[in-house]
């Protein structure tokens, strides 16, 4: 049972959506701090571009495509949930989860190959940032996939459909973080 507190809406914004926005606000400063540190270091170390040259832009681009497409199905899931079609919303979320899993699998192969070539997290501070920032992001993708599975399971029974929008909001945020990471870690050679 929910407390009455959870049913009120003095701002007119649903409480759960408000909370997700605040969650995203707190995440923005975490990634913001990490990326600002990286950018400042990068500007001070021209030599890092030689390290960055070893990152595989094509794999990064493929993952960008996968992640962006997965956001599309999250939006379609939200639309279906708004129409009260929990079955369809769940199906769309499964597509999004597939995208997330693909992203992680590609990343796993990419990292394995890089580590085998000797580029480990300790080999240079560029690689430290590379693994830390992308790793923190990958943890967010993984968490998103897991939570999305739970949301999809309830949405399938036509329950708690508002959650489809909330996990979508979070997923878009994870996307946006990657849109910053991709050029910073891959394109800028």
């Amino acid at each position: 049972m929910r407390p009455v507190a959870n049913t009120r809406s003095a701002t007119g914004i649903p409480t759960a959506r408000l909370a997700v926005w605040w969650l995203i606000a707190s995440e923005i400063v975490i990634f913001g701090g990490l990326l600002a540190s990286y950018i400042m270091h990068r500007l001070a170390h021209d030599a890092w571009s030689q390290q960055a040259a070893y990152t595989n832009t094509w794999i990064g681009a493929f993952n960008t495509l996968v992640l962006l497409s997965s956001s599309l199905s999250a939006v379609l899931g939200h639309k279906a949930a708004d129409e009260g079609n929990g079955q369809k919303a769940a199906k769309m979320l499964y597509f999004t989860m597939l995208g997330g899993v693909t992203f992680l699998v590609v990343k796993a192969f990419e990292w394995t190959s890089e580590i085998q070539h000797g580029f480990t997290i300790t080999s240079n501070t560029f690689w430290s940032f590379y693994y830390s920032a992308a790793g923190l992001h990958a943890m967010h993708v993984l968490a998103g996939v897991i939570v999305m599975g739970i949301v999809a399971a309830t949405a399938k029974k036509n329950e708690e459909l508002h959650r489809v929008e909330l996990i979508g909001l979070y997923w878009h945020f994870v996307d946006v973080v990657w849109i910053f990471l991709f050029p910073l870690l891959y394109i800028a050679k």
Partner: protein
Amino acid sequence: MAESAPATHDDHHEPSGLIKYIWSTDHKIIGMQYLFTGMFMALVGGFFAYAFRMQLAFPGVDIPGWGTMTPPDYNALVTNHGTIMIFWVAMPVLIAAFGNFLIPLMIGCDDMVFPRLNRLSYQVFLLSTIILLASFFVPGGAFGGAWTAYPPLSAQSTYNLTPWGAPLWLLAVALEFAAFLMGGINFITTTMNSRAPGMKMHDIPLVVWMIVLASIIFMLSVGPLFAGAIMLFFDQVLGTGFFDPNRGGDPVLWQHMFWFFGHPEVYVVLLPAMGIVAEIITVFARKKFFAYTPVLYTTFAAGVASFTVWAHHQFIAGIDPRMAHIFTVTTLLISVPIAVIVFCSIATLYGGSIRFKTPMLWALSFIFEFLLGGVTGIYLGAAGADVYFHDSYFVLAHFHYTFFPIAIIGTFAAITYWFPKMFGRHMNETLGKIHFVGTIIPFNLIFIPLFILGLAGQHRRIYSFSLFPDLAKPEFQDLRVFATVSLLVMLAFQFVFLFNFFSSMIKGRKAEKNPYDANTLEWTTESPPPHGNWSELPSVYRGPYEYSVPGRADDFWPQNEPS
């Protein structure tokens, strides 16, 4: 879930026995959990202070309860005293305990919007507490690199000699941050969305505003340090070089990340304390709070400005002198909004009919003592003076004059004021006043000598001054002994409080609904409030501070009373 709408209040089952206290989602119980954990940690932090002050006053002595202190012991105790008092006392008590207890009661709803998230927040906090305490029992002992944990000392175990203590300390702090982020989201969304019908923005009591603003400031400032904590953790356990200048890293980066959070953190704990003081002085002066709206917007301004001052902690860290000028200006500027809030609190007293009950004594002493802390901060905010004062006992005395009023005086004010509501009984007023006098006078006697020692050049973080002939002179050592004896007196008086607290909980005078004739909503329900807080949730018709309104028979006008 045990939570239920008050409409079905009689039907639903409230968990009983121990489960009620350790697995509850009720905001009042979670508030108590935070309060008691914070009080326990205050005893730990106080014991640490006792131990290292004994070492400073009587170097090499066999300290009762500790034994002979080694330099690594000393460093670990000083480090963890600071860490505990800020992250495990000031924050859990002022924000989490009183935020949890007061927000739903003061805005007129039955619980937080996310009760289970709230419970998780406490459980993560408890885990962080256990990890921090456990770090004293690992090989190498607890971390001793100061609560600011500057690398390279904190990053490399070859320097700090605590291969387990340092990462555990960092992990505990990071988990504590996560707990407060969860709690903060709850506080903010609850206050934004779940206010009683009729409660407009300017009808929210100041203490609720202050706790919510503190939560927002915390949330927006802690992110970079969270990232920094991950980086430092990797430096410690994986051997990366984020903060190692030999490998392209930058140790000053940590200082920026730490203080970008660390200075707003001062306001994170200051604002709730100021809110508590605002509630108390209006009730015990029987006057409307002076300039509610300007104070509110001034607080917004102070919150924004608090993000622009952090590098005043780094004036001697090799930052660009031009940057030091900018941070000097912003630092001196931020004293303006804080002074406005303090002056408005004082102006509230003017023309009031003041009642010197124990909570009021604490509130007034907060204003006085915090002013001393604020005024001495002006010297440190000016880069020219700070170059001389940096890392001296002057700095130490200054921030104890700010943090002691916040974390200790503010907490005692709040506990003595809301005790009847929390436990349904009154505390003993005579014991309360004895405890007040026995805390405030020794507090000043501890730290005024330390100001003098700091001006004389006494450096912080020194285990024994006997190796420094200039500082080991008898006149200085006498001041150190004086400060330590004052500390012993102050700590002894805390037993008066503990006795009063626990004995009043069991056999204090029964408290009525509204013992102080106060206006805010928490005083309109039973003491202590039942599960669900009200049998019928209140509506709000006016602001929180309508005291001594001309033309009314009563000198108070509860927020929920229809006009």
